């Protein structure tokens, strides 16, 4: 900035600009910079390596694991718990936890089952009731949390029991309620695959969207006279993404193809990430997670942010429960019990969302659930069932938590908390 420009923005020309504080001091590294790219990848790199390892090991030990049919199946199996994990990301970002997501999903499954059969409701109404119930549950958690300052793990542990009781009461003595196979949500979760041309087109569209958003960002930065980086690297990564997506689509299309359910899950994760990274509310989640007091002093309604995080998590859990019910074509007293709860939380953490709050992204739900589901699927193919699966998933979660904790500590130690 020249002296003339300085004068224009209100700095007297005779005021000495502190010697070393030139325009180049106040800079922001452009997004394409190699170091920046690596640091952006940094948090997801370990999980990508982990996923590669898991796939490599199971692919080598079992010929079926990497087949089109199995991967297509694995993708659709990830959807329900992955959706719940997406909600978990929101509460983890504000440094809280919801331990009742499994039970919430079970209640949603049960409401869907009971609503469709005993109450004879249309599908849309049954879904709406389940989602509204989850809004209520999330609000109760949020209000108890902000009013009474009870740690969220205790509140949601109480909620876990209460919701489980409600679920048992709803299902009654039958133990299982079958959802009609003709129901749309069952077909959506079991049989609906994108027609091949549509799948290819969607993959192309996704890559084009990635390219367009990057180019638009470069254009906006140029317009604002900010360092913007060049177009070529973005086009290159977009091209690589296009090739990767089309290849994946082609591979899945050799079997059943890309399911509606998985496409829906991907869209949900992308949308969640846009909300987290590009909206005011998303930024407030990060701010509150890092320092509630600083956020409050900045004029943010911290209570509202906490409450909204609990509500979003509960709604996502209910959505996951509805999808799970569709997948099984049934709601039972065991819906949402067992490892659902911990798998959802583990997925978010394994995927790279910190338990310490203020750090993470929606894609961690996608990456984390793929790891967990791959382990589960691979072990099942190797005829190792629940005991080994639980122990190995537990071990992976422990490793992920240790990685999170160690990196948190090193960030604090190096002043990058």
């Amino acid at each position, binding site marked *: 900035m020249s002296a003339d420009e300085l004068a224009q923005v209100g700095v007297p020309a005779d005021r000495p600009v502190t010697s070393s504080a030139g325009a180049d001091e106040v800079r922001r590294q452009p997004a394409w910079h190699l170091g920046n790219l690596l640091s952006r990848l940094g948090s997801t790199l370990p999980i990508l390596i982990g996923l590669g390892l898991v796939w490599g090991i199971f692919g080598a030990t079992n010929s079926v694991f990497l087949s089109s049919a199995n991967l297509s199946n694995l993708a659709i199996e990830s959807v329900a718990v992955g959706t719940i994990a997406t909600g978990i990301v929101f509460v983890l970002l504000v440094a809280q936890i919801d331990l009742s997501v499994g039970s919430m999903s079970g209640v949603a499954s049960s409401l869907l089952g009971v609503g469709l059969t005993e109450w004879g409701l249309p599908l849309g109404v049954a879904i709406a009731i389940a989602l509204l119930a989850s809004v209520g549950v999330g609000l109760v958690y949020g209000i108890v949390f902000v009013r009474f300052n009870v740690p969220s793990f205790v509140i949601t542990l109480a909620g876990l029991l209460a919701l489980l009781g409600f679920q048992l009461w709803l299902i009654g003595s039958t133990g299982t309620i079958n959802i009609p196979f003709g129901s749309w949500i069952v077909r959506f979760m079991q049989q609906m695959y994108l027609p091949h041309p549509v799948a290819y087109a969607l993959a192309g569209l996704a890559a084009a969207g990635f390219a367009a958003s990057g180019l638009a960002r470069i254009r906006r930065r140029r317009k604002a006279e900010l360092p913007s980086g060049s177009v070529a690297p973005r086009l290159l990564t977009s091209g690589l993404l296009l090739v990767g997506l089309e290849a994946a689509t082609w591979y899945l299309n050799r079997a059943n193809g890309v399911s509606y359910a998985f496409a829906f899950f991907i869209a949900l994760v992308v949308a969640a990430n846009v909300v987290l990274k590009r909206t005011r509310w998303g930024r407030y989640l990060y701010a509150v997670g890092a320092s509630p007091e600083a956020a409050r002093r900045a004029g943010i309604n911290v209570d509202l942010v906490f409450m909204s995080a609990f509500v979003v998590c509960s709604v996502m859990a209910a959505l996951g429960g509805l999808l799970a019910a569709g997948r099984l074509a049934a709601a039972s007293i065991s819906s949402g019990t067992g490892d659902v709860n911990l798998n959802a939380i583990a997925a978010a953490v394994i995927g790279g969302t910190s338990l310490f709050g203020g*750090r993470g992204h929606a894609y961690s739900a996608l990456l984390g659930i793929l790891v967990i589901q791959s382990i589960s699927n691979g072990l099942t193919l190797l005829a190792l069932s629940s005991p080994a699966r639980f122990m190995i998933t537990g071990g992976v979660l422990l490793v992920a938590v240790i990685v999170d904790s160690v990196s948190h500590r090193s960030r604090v130690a190096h002043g990058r908390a």
Partner: protein
Amino acid sequence: MTRERALSITTEAPLAAGDPGQPLVSVRRVTKAFGAIRALSDVDLDVYAGEVVALLGDNGAGKSTLAKILAGAHPADSGEIRVGGRPVSISSPSEAQALGIAIVYQDLALCENLDTVANLFLGREEGRFLLSEESMEKHARSLLLRLSAKIPSVGTAVASLSGGQRQVVAIARSLLGNPSLVILDEPTAALGVAQTAEVLNMITQLSESGHGVVLITHQLADVQVVADRVVVLRQGRNNGTFRMSEVSQEDIIAAITGANNAGAAGRTGPSQQSSKGSP
């Protein structure tokens, strides 16, 4: 806060309503108790545009309580606050902001996981649906440049900045709302020599551009560099108001500690702003 207000980033303070002889902010007989503890009793304070008022006192003298009352963090129990001559009640941080009063807290002012731009605009982001990151970054750069702030990169997390740089970011943020009064709560408490100089330089710039500044500090050396006037609190009461040019460091210390009668003699009414603290 309106969008326009948030957008108008300037280091020039808006002129206070009325004549220049009128204080920007005037506090009269403010009292505040926390349970049985009387934090403030009948405290007075005037701040004029373009001056730096150092608010001094020992620990527990009520300095931070007074600052928090002005910033809307605690409401006063009784007493009167006038801004630009108009009586006001400040019951929340956003009301204080709307009245043109900004406060920079000693700690917990920034979110360490967010970058400088995000911290500067925290709570007043630009953009309707999606955040206008480019516009915010542009404003942040020009603001920091005008403040001669040495921030290595506006895109890295605040956690990687030094203590002085963080303080500069916190002060810069307080200016975004275009305040007329800036309250700084021990801005140099945790800083080294060079960083302290940087912050003091910034305080001088603020007053030169017409802001009223209240500086809460324990560092008498800082006070002598930047302050125009000194207001001493002791045990929740006014214990002397001095012009910097007319007072010795010993007098100030005496007023702070109550070591001699200077405190009683120096307790001044609002009409005797410049009376000396000791006979």
